[in-house]
């Protein structure tokens, strides 16, 4: 083979790999290169070079100097001059040539270039950021990519001074500073309600205009542009070097997921600086280790103490808050925002702002200084362990307790003492299992510890069951603990649905025995129905539709049987069971049964809502019933009515999310409704709207996933959103984007399915994605694509064969199967089999 021919092959594979998301490239090379190791090595080496090349050759020979920037054009914008340069990019003043008002804008160009998948995400993020309309937030107008593939953003150009400089220059007093800071909190809270996290809040990003109006710059774009530096690596990890470490929260310097709580922390730093003239920590090193140690392990001085110190070392004529004004409330408020543990800070920027308002109005503030309750975490902190490690300590403690407990039972010498000890140990164990688990649940990075805790707890519970024959209180505790364990296992990405199911079944067995033997107490009845319900949901997630249907029917029958002893809790479950049952019936293509059942569900939830108008949970149940009603109508072909219904659902859920942005149940259900709406628009042939809706849904799913990457739902939702967008793009005749989207979705679904073979929902998504991928690839003229198409086809059929052996297929899986079968003739090696 001549060198030139070799190069053509290398180039072909290399360029095909470039079109795929970075994480899918290794698998692609396996397929494309087969046994040709030289080819694989060559392409891999080029891919590595491509990744590192960054801005290489991005400026034509002989670089330009600043004044020559003037007149350069980026898209429809003409640059006027450079404003500044940061870790992420360069900012220019610019005007839009066709803008009759000649309004000056700020145009920020990232240093690095971006791949196709990354550009797609950038576009989505930009849409979301563009929706942020707040008087204290600099608006994002537009964006795009430069000729050499570097992303740029166009935003409001703000003339002003950084907030700290402004306060100093105007000689503002404490009160005025606090009031201005409250406006900043308001803007941050508004963005959080729209699920946007700033990630890089700092004084230089908060400008105050000549009119005294604070404006927040760069909302959410830290990630947007930073990822552009290296589209292939984890965004968070690459962010740190570009942030100002003094403003970064402990979770940020550790490279853990960034949440709204991280912004609250940075707000704490800004307020600290505004009031004392210094920052809580002085970071004087580039060493990541040093930064982590400083930010995560040292306690900042009280603001009042820092202000006093500053007064001594840097006396100034300018008015600065007096230490006496800060002592007490302000010290407490600032330090609450600066706590190491995200969940011990203010729950929201609004809450922080409200506490400041209380202080300004002379009311009692809600923040309390740290108490002895937190000694343990302090102890752990001093010993250089993270929160995750603290939980590990507790998990082993719990293991020890189980042993002690058994020993106590065995020690028969003093029966009374042994019983008393048994009781104490049980109480302590309950506290650890429930309280500790809840405490660490939302802590980033605590997953491994959580798994250990759960594993230990489950061993502990089993050993406890052996000793609990005749003690109803203890058995009730046990049932609750198994139920909780089932919840955790069902939610965690690394756990298995099968284990969750087993735990629920243990809990159910205990509840049933109690209910039969004892006084048929309502709390046991409630427990039984709730457990049947959870078991049904888990079976549904595992795609075991027939089993799920049976279970929901049992739950519905039980509810009827318990009618005489109806509690509010039982009544509130009726609609939920009907709704879930209807959804399963839709998947089973039992249209008529689904219609009857969902009509009942809607009727029930509407009535329940009228009786309990302030119950937000009930509102969300009603929305879910509307969503399933839409789903059922869509399946019957009543797309217009389905669309109206699902829009009703969305309106309710959007209102709930606005009201309680941190309740994950509402955000999840909102995702359902967004997805449903996109599907209906698509079915109605309103393609541009449908694509937009799919993209919006995907963006929200990405956010949900980001909030807790270990949460299984977030991952599955993301895979499903990508799959649906991909399918819509196929129908819209955009195969290139469809391919990259479908591949990304497949990647995620495959990871879930690999971690838990019982994850039928992920496998079913996998089958659908494979069927769409095969359709696109086999439609291509490129032989490499067609070869991949046949492999995909074979793979998809295998997945479906497995699904079929688990029980009836969903309506969607059956469609996928049909389309795969019809494509078989395109692949000679498969057609005969």
């Amino acid at each position: 083979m001549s060198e030139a021919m070799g190069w053509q092959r290398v180039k072909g594979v290399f360029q095909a790999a470039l079109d795929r998301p970075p994480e899918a490239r290794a698998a692609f090379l396996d397929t494309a290169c087969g046994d040709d190791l030289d080819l694989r090595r060559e392409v891999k080496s080029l891919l590595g070079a491509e990744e590192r090349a960054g801005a290489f050759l991005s400026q034509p020979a002989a670089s330009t100097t600043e004044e020559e920037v003037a007149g350069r054009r980026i898209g429809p914008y003409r640059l006027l001059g450079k404003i500044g340069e940061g870790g992420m990019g360069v900012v220019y003043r610019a005007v839009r040539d066709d803008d009759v008002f000649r309004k000056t804008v700020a145009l920020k160009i990232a240093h690095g270039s971006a791949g196709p998948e990354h550009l797609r995400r950038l576009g989505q993020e930009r849409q979301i950021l563009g929706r942020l309309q707040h008087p204290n937030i600099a608006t994002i107008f537009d964006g795009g990519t430069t000729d050499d593939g570097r992303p740029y953003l166009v935003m409001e150009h703000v003339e002003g001074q950084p907030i700290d400089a402004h306060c100093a220059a105007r000689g503002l007093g404490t009160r005025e500073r606090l009031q201005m800071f409250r406006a900043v909190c308001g803007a941050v809270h508004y963005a959080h309600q729209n699920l946007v996290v700033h990630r890089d809040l700092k004084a230089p990003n908060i400008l105050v205009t000549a009119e005294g109006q604070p404006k927040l710059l760069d909302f959410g774009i830290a990630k947007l542009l930073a990822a552009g530096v290296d589209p292939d690596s984890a965004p968070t990890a690459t962010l740190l070097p570009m942030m100002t470490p003094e403003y970064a929260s402990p979770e940020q310097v550790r490279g853990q997921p960034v949440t709204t709580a991280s912004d609250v922390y940075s707000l704490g730093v800004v307020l600290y600086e505004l009031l004392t003239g210094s920052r809580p920590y002085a970071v004087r090193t580039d060493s990541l280790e040093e930064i982590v140690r400083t930010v995560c392990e040292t306690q900042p001085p009280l603001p009042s103490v820092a202000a006093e110190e500053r007064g001594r070392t840097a006396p100034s004529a300018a008015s600065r808050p007096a230490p006496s004004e800060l002592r007490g409330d302000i010290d407490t408020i600032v330090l609450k925002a600066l706590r190491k543990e995200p969940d011990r800070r203010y729950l929201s920027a609004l809450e922080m702002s409200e506490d400041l308002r209380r202080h300004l109005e002379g009311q009692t503030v809600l923040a309390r200084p740290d108490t002895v309750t937190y000694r343990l975490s302090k102890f752990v902190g001093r010993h250089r362990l993270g929160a995750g490690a603290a939980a590990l300590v507790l998990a082993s403690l719990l293991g020890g307790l189980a042993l002690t407990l058994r020993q106590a039972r065995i020690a028969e010498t003093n029966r009374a003492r042994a019983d008393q000890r048994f009781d104490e140990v049980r109480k302590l164990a309950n506290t650890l299992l429930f309280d500790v688990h809840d405490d660490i649940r939302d802590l980033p990075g605590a997953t491994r510890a959580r798994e250990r805790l759960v594993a230990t707890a489950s061993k502990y519970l089993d050993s406890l069951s052996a000793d609990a024959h005749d003690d109803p209180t203890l058995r009730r505790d046990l049932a609750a603990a198994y139920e909780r364990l089932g919840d955790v296992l069902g939610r965690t990405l690394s756990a298995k649905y099968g284990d969750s199911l087993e735990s629920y079944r243990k809990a159910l067995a205990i509840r049933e025995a109690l209910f039969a033997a004892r006084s048929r107490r309502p709390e046991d009845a409630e427990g039984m129905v709730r457990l049947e319900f959870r078991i049904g949901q888990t079976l549904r997630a595992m795609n075991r539709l027939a089993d799920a249907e049976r279970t929901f029917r049992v739950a519905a029958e039980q509810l009827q049987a318990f009618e005489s002893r109806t509690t509010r809790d039982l009544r509130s479950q009726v609609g939920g069971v009907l709704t879930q049952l209807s959804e399963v019936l839709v998947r089973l293509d039992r249209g008529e049964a689904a219609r009857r059942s969902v009509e009942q569900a809607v009727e029930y939830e509407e009535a329940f809502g009228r009786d309990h108008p302030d119950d937000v949970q009930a509102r969300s149940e009603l929305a879910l019933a509307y969503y399933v009603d839409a789903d059922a109508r869509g399946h019957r072909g009543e797309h217009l009515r389905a669309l109206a219904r699902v829009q009703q659902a969305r309106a309710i859920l959007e209102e709930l999310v606005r009201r309680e942005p941190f309740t994950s149940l509402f955000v999840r259900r909102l995702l359902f409704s967004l997805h449903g709406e996109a599907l209906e628009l698509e079915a109605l042939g309103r393609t541009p709207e449908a694509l937009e809706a799919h993209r919006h849904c995907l963006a929200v799913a990405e956010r949900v996933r980001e909030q807790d990457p270990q949460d299984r739902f977030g991952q599955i939702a993301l895979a499903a959103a990508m799959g649906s967008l991909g399918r819509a793009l196929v129908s819209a005749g955009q195969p290139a984007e469809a391919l990259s989207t479908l591949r990304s979705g497949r990647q995620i679904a495959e990871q879930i399915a690999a971690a838990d073979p019982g994850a039928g929902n992920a496998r079913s998504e996998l089958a659908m994605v494979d069927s769409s991928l095969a359709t696109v690839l086999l439609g291509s003229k490129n032989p490499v694509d067609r070869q991949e198409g046949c492999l995909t086809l074979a793979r998809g059929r295998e997945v479906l064969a497995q699904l079929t052996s688990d029980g009836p297929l969903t309506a969607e899986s059956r469609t996928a199967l049909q389309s795969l079968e019809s494509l078989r003739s395109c692949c000679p090696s498969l057609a005969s089999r």
Partner: protein
Amino acid sequence: MPPPLTPGIAAGEVTRLLQAWGEGDATARDRLIPVVYAELRRRAAAYLRRERSGHTLRPTDLVHETYLRLCEQESGWQNRDQFFGVASRLMRRILVDHARARGAAKRGAGLHVTLAESQAPAAANEPDVLDLDAALDELTAIDEAQARLVELRYFGGLTLEETASLLGMSRATASREWRTAKAWLYRRLRR
């Protein structure tokens, strides 16, 4: 009235040569090169003088100005593309000559060739012109189209769209080829 360009070539001749070349006359191209080269160099020298007052050489400006100067308003877009193709290659030669002349060929010493010492240091990612020139010759042997693309974009300062139209590729293909060439050259130069 513009001064005569190069002895022996009348104004308007450049356009005619471009047209002849477009119609397949290879000798037309050979006659064109010295003219364009002379004009580019003259302009480059003017830029280099002006550098001291804060200006730098920009290939895009040079190529565009030279084109306007040589072809006035007579040529169509087709000719303009051809012209830019030639000019980019010549720009490469001028820059390489310039680098050699300055004795800046201190390979591996980390000294990047810039056209003026007073200028801010070039972007850290800017390669040594002489190294790049050699690497481009190697790339030409393997994939001539890619090497042309780099010449047009890097030395000619053309945009991706202009390059794509000149090479008769779609924008997507040009972008893919550009990324491939960049990766190849990067690996060649940084290894």
